């Protein structure tokens, strides 16, 4: 269970988040929406321990353990994984050797099991053998990059998976596959947190499972069910914020 209490985050010398409290309930799919520059990505990168994001106050807890000052490695090992908004290419590093190295760190997997697992989960997100034999994100389209993020989520089965814009730069087929991956993670007990601009992805998810958080100026200004998404799509952020008295 993830708890961020009274969190402050600074990036490039500017305070982006001041006193955020975000305790996403387990066994839900959480959706964070908000205007550009409201601090959604900052939150996700700060939670994952990015060195450029300085935590200026508050505390992050995962299953009762303080992870506020841990390294990205330790945070990942504690069970919080971030799916990147812009997953980078890594020249010369094959996806499979990388995933093998990542999974070797997890107990109880043999080399054969790992290869079998990569193949099986790879198929689940519609990645071909040829794609899995490439280097990390080399020659990948937006959709393929995001599939690889979800694949890593499926392989690691973390306590909390944050997906930063899994639906941007993604075609319809990929969207469907990514949604299916999210459902599967949910079924397996992962708390999924999705940062998004649009409702498209939500069309492919079971709306009953979704909690929506609206972000503004580094704060969660309101939380509700999936109808909030429809409201935003119809009226835009400004009007919704005005109506809820959140701005």
């Amino acid at each position, binding site marked *: 269970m993830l708890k961020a209490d009274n969190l402050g985050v600074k990036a490039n010398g500017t305070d982006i988040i001041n006193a955020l409290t975000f305790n996403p309930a387990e066994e839900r799919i959480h959706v964070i929406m908000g205007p550009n520059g409201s601090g959604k990505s900052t939150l996700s990168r700060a939670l994952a321990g990015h*060195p*450029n994001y300085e935590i200026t106050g508050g505390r992050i807890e995962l299953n009762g353990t303080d992870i506020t000052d841990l*390294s*990205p*490695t330790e*945070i990942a*090992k504690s069970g919080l994984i971030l799916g*990147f908004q812009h997953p980078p290419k*890594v*020249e010369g590093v094959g996806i499979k050797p990388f995933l093998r190295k990542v999974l070797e760190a997890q107990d109880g997997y043999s080399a054969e099991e790992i290869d079998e697992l990569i193949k099986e989960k790879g198929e689940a997100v519609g990645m071909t053998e040829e794609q899995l034999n490439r280097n990390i994100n080399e020659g990948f389209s937006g959709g393929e990059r995001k599939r690889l993020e979800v694949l890593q989520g499926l392989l690691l089965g973390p306590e909390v998976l944050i997906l930063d814009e899994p639906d941007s730069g993604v075609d319809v087929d990929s969207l469907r596959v990514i949604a299916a991956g999210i459902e599967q993670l949910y079924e397996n007990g992962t708390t999924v947190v999705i940062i998004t601009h649009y409702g498209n992805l939500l069309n492919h998810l079971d709306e009953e499972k979704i909690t929506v958080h609206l972000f503004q100026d580094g704060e969660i200004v309101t939380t509700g069910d999936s109808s909030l998404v429809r409201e935003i799509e119809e009226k835009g952020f400004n009007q919704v914020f005005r109506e809820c008295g959140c701005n």
Partner: protein
Amino acid sequence: MVAINNLKTRSFDKTGIEKQIEEIVDRNDEPNWVTDLRYRAANAYDGAPLDDPVISDPLEFLTNHKETPADRIKSLEDLPEETKALLDKLGISELEQRAITGLTIQDDREMIDSSFRSQWEERGVIVAPMEDAVKEYPEVRERFSGLFTPEESKLLAYHTAIWSGGIFLRVKEGEKIDIPLHLFFLIQQEGLAQAPHIIIWAEEGSEVQLVEGCTAPVLPKTSLHLDMTELYIEEDARVDLTVLQNWPEYVHTRPTQRGTIEEGGELSITTVGLGPGKSNVTDPQYWVEANGRVEINSITLSKGESLVDLGGSIYLEGDGSSGANNSKGVIMDNSRTITRGVISAEAQETKGHISCDALVMNDGARMETYPGLSSSVDNAELSHEAAIGKIKEEELFYLMSRGLDEEEATQLIVQGFVNPVIEGLPNGFLDEVKQIIDLSVQGEM
């Protein structure tokens, strides 16, 4: 090249060279033309120019040698443990190990040579220790020093005067050798010289793949290693040469490569420098005829206080010829690495490309690149690109955010960086290289 020249003549050094020539001649019973060439070179020494960033007087190394005579290796059992282990990893059988290391082991040369050499001769390849080749094969005479003159520089004069060891390799017309030929230079002190001379001669339409290892486990402290490779690639011949260098920290190396590539020929040289020694300065030169191609690839791990200065001139002399010079460096500690490849387009429809990529691993490590392109025709296509930088923070964060620690993530990224250059290497070799990279990166963390 920054030169600290020292042109003062030291009469006792001249005596030193001549004394060394006498020792070699006494031992080898070589043909007159070889001895004559040695004396010509010794005479050229004083007047020859010296352009070296480190060595102001090559003859200084003569006296140092005398102080620390080294052990002799007489059989496989005397090989240093790490060399044995490397040969094992390369998947080379014990018989072949004896053969390939035997190339520079004088004492039991006859015995080993006979089986090794006849084995290859059946496939159309003459391979012989250079001391034997100058006696046995008259054709060596016109190829030896065919691509350089001892008058060019003090280092070449010195090499030519005192060379010993090395091999002569000739692949007969049309022969396509489908298994790689391993040439392992285990340089040990022999007389006072570390100056092997290598000739690789691929006749018309022949093909061969060579893997050359160079190491010097028993060299005395602060020594100078001067090898020379002359490559003759005839029409439509193809030679792939992979060189693994792993010099100890106290050796200065000045390898020289010269090659001609005749019409339609191809030469590809991949140098993997895992240990560049105290200083490694090299400026290979290649002349390429019509539709020929030369490709130089290198990966260098610069560590400690090393100075690495890699030149490389490619002269595109024939229409349709092409050349590439791609270097990658991982620059660590207080080392300094400079690359200065040059490609000159002197004929029609020629193509050349130079690239240089470097990962600078810490402050104080210094990377410089000064490539050169020159075109005097209107339809050459020449290009270069370079990037000097650190490991990208976003890539590091990406790998770490999956649970890899900083060291593991850095090792993966550095391996990925060198991978495009080394991926064609034999498997055992590749594993060895990766392990050395991992250890080097670990040392940096």
